[in-house]
């Protein structure tokens, strides 16, 4: 079956304070077939702004990394080194970050239902929450 829509998230931890506290929530999302992590890696930006990356399963004696590696349902290395450089541009120096490539697993049964019903996906737009907030503020000002 084709993959569902893919989303890349870069979760930065300024000051290199990466921790595994996001992992239980990731586990829950995966358990619920909401997402699947099809690629991911760990990125480091040093104080000079130099970027390097390692695979989760290469970090070694780090329980969180091992857990993250275990959550991966890796399809391919979908993120290239150039992608890493671009995605890391917004990270502060002296940061670590988890780059995760989500597949929106929940879309697949919905997509199948749309196709089965003879429907056509005529438009699909993801609106960032900040934009929604701005619109709501503007609407409140209008009323």
């Amino acid at each position, binding site marked *: 079956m084709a993959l569902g829509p893919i989303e890349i998230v870069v979760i930065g931890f300024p000051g290199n304070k990466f921790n595994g506290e996001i992992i239980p929530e990731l586990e829950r999302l995966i358990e619920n077939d909401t997402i699947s992590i099809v690629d991911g890696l760990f990125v480091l930006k040093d104080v000079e702004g130099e970027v390097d990356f390692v695979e989760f399963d290469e970090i070694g004696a780090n329980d969180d990394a091992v857990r993250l590696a275990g959550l991966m349902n890796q399809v391919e290395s979908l993120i*290239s*080194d150039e*992608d*890493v450089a671009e995605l890391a541009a917004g990270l502060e120096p002296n940061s670590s970050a988890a780059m995760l490539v989500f597949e929106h697993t929940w879309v697949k049964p919905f997509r199948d239902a749309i196709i089965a019903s003879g429907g056509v*996906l005529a438009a699909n737009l993801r609106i960032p929450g900040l934009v929604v907030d701005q619109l709501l503020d503007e609407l409140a000002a209008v009323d």
Partner: protein
Amino acid sequence: MPRRRIGRPGLVGTMARTAVIAGTASATVGAVSRGQAAKAQSAAQQQAAQQAAFESQAQLADMQAQLATVQAQQTPPPPPATAPAAGDDLMVKLQQLADMKAAGILDDAEFAAAKAKLLG
């Protein structure tokens, strides 16, 4: 396999590249983007049309102002008030006839006839 990502195509690069090649950065949002583009274009056209209308109105006003200036320049100055003040009724009537001829109300023959009658 620490370097298996190097020099290979990736999601972000592919997204950027396909957007350049085919304008398909996100096929799913294409319809919406096109709709918005069409709206934006139509809004721009409307604005351009309004602008053009405004400009032609401005030009019209400008032309009218110019015309008024030209007319003011061409309009013969009113007959000197001294003529009637002189009390010469014949002169006033002759002047009126001349004005009527100048204004095209009387042609040459009519003017001549009227003048002949006045001068009787």
